[in-house]
């Protein structure tokens, strides 16, 4: 056992010096991200919320509700709803982060990680990266389904990508809120209920699926300030799709891109440190 395979810097007493380089941290994050992706490949049904659900919602909204929903200022519901479908699906799919982390904490594996000389935040960051990659898959599914049913954009490539990036960045920041929930859940099941209690209202009380003009006044105010509305309006604006929110005077509806970025940065700045604090608290005994 003399040929130690991990040669690390040691101090005079032979103790390993903990100088974790950025490269080491990045390698830990890559390892954890890969682990979570392997998990998904083992249980592909985990992906149903980013593959089957978007297709179902697209068909449901465009062919069942779409005909009955007039768009203030004109335009087709197909053109209107696609950004909303993207925001809706990405918002609800962050539930996966909560369930995934709650599952990890429930199993013995977390104790293994805690006894390794690893960069511990990699557990959270790796999870968030894996979930961002599945969110990208979701975006592709939404776009392809949309194109198949007749959604079109006249925008040039950069704003098109910008629209997707805007929604994905929001979903990424929201996944850190989901992480906080997962870290405070007693079980994966209770983490899943987070989706129905928080994420569905968040996604639906917005301009994502229907114009807010038809809502009661108080609800419209909530919807116009909902970050999901800002993100959706931002994507519609960038894609040149019908965006009836542009006629609403609330600041986020007048400046949807700035509002989305501000919301995402704010959520990330609060939720990420909070999640690592919850993680430390949950793993201290």
């Amino acid at each position: 056992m003399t040929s130690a395979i991990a040669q690390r810097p040691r101090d005079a007493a032979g103790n390993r010096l903990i100088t974790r380089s950025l490269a080491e941290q990045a390698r830990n994050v890559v390892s954890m991200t890969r682990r979570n992706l392997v998990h998904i490949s083992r249980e592909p049904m985990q992906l149903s919320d980013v593959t089957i659900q978007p297709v179902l919602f697209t068909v449901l909204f465009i062919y069942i509700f779409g005909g009955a929903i007039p768009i203030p200022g004109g335009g087709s519901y197909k053109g209107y709803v696609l950004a909303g479908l993207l925001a809706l699906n990405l918002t609800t799919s962050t539930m996966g982060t909560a369930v995934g982390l709650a599952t990890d904490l429930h199993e013995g594996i977390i104790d293994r990680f805690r006894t390794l000389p690893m960069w511990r935040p990699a557990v959270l960051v790796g999870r968030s990266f894996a979930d961002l990659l599945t969110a990208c898959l979701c975006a592709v599914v939404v776009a392809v389904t949309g194109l198949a049913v007749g959604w079109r954009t006249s925008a040039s490539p950069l704003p098109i990508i910008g629209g997707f990036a805007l929604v994905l960045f929001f979903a990424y920041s929201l996944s850190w809120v989901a992480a906080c929930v997962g870290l405070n859940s007693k079980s994966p099941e209770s983490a899943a209920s987070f989706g129905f209690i928080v994420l569905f209202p968040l996604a639906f009380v917005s301009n994502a699926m229907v114009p807010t003009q038809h809502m009661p006044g108080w609800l419209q105010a909530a919807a116009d300030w909902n970050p999901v509305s800002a993100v959706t309006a931002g994507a519609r604006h960038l894609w040149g799709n019908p965006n009836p929110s542009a006629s609403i005077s609330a600041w986020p509806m007048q400046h949807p891109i700035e509002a989305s970025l501000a919301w995402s940065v704010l959520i990330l700045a609060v939720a990420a440190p909070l999640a690592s604090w919850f993680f430390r608290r949950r793993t201290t005994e």
Partner: protein
Amino acid sequence: MADTMIEADGLFKSYGETRALAGVSFSVPAGSVLGLLGPNGAGKTTAVRILTTLARPDAGQARVAGIDVLARPAAVRGQIGVAAQDATLDGLLTGRQNLVLVGELSGVRTGRARARAAELLELFELAYAADRVVKGYSGGMRRRLDLAASLVTRPPVLFLDEPTTGLDPVSRQGVWEVIRELTGSGVTVLLTTQYLDEADALADHIVVVNHGRVIADGTPLELKERSRSAHVEVTLAEPGPEAAEVIAPLVGGRVSVSADGLRLAAAVDSAPGLATALVRALDRAGMLVDNIEVRQPSLDDVFFALTGAHMPGDGNGSEAKGTSGGSADAAELESEGAQA
């Protein structure tokens, strides 16, 4: 390298109302194996969790490889391998992926981590299942993989929390062999176990814990000597009510008789020629002896003596004798590997 690789000094730890540790101290010299022996709930796992940086004690000090566990837990993690009681593996990864992941997270480059994983899978006879998902592994396979995971970085200090609990005898022997090989190579091991024969077979030194306290420590030999009693058991062909009186003078005191009157058991100080003497005495009294067994005290006897005494600390010698005499039947029935 420090002379003492593991040091626990006055560890206290409570979980809510439950006091898990009530002042546990022990140390493990470099290159030796300490067996932490105790029943379920004695505090063994809590001690291991503190030493492996998973839990913080309410009071007390701990050092591993000369590093203060409380002050520099991250540095300690670079020196230890841990095989926990609940196998800490990723059920959705394959055996190989588990080992590579542990290697990578410990700072080993992927290529070397892969090579080491292959080596360990071979060593633990898991190569045939290396690319199967761990969820489908049997209990024994999971244990072996967990043990392998603790060895990925060749740590100088190893913590094995009940490494053979739930294993079949063959797997158990396999794990023992691996542990023996490791200790032969200079690794310091803290091993917890409920199995007395396991501590006897593997440990250089044994610390017995019960109710969060150390109630005895010493080498396996010292602990056996401490109970000072050999054990004799006679099985008669027919119940003999007066048999106990016949052999009492020869065994120097208390004889316990089984309910059916066929079996007599007693603790004795020493036993040269005792079997012959007992058979002669019983023969003279007109009783037929079917079987007679005299054996040296096992750690079972020591353990029952110590934990049954409810007297922590030292001075349990006299208590021990009384208890082992009184519960000789129970002790005998539960022990294994008895021999003349």
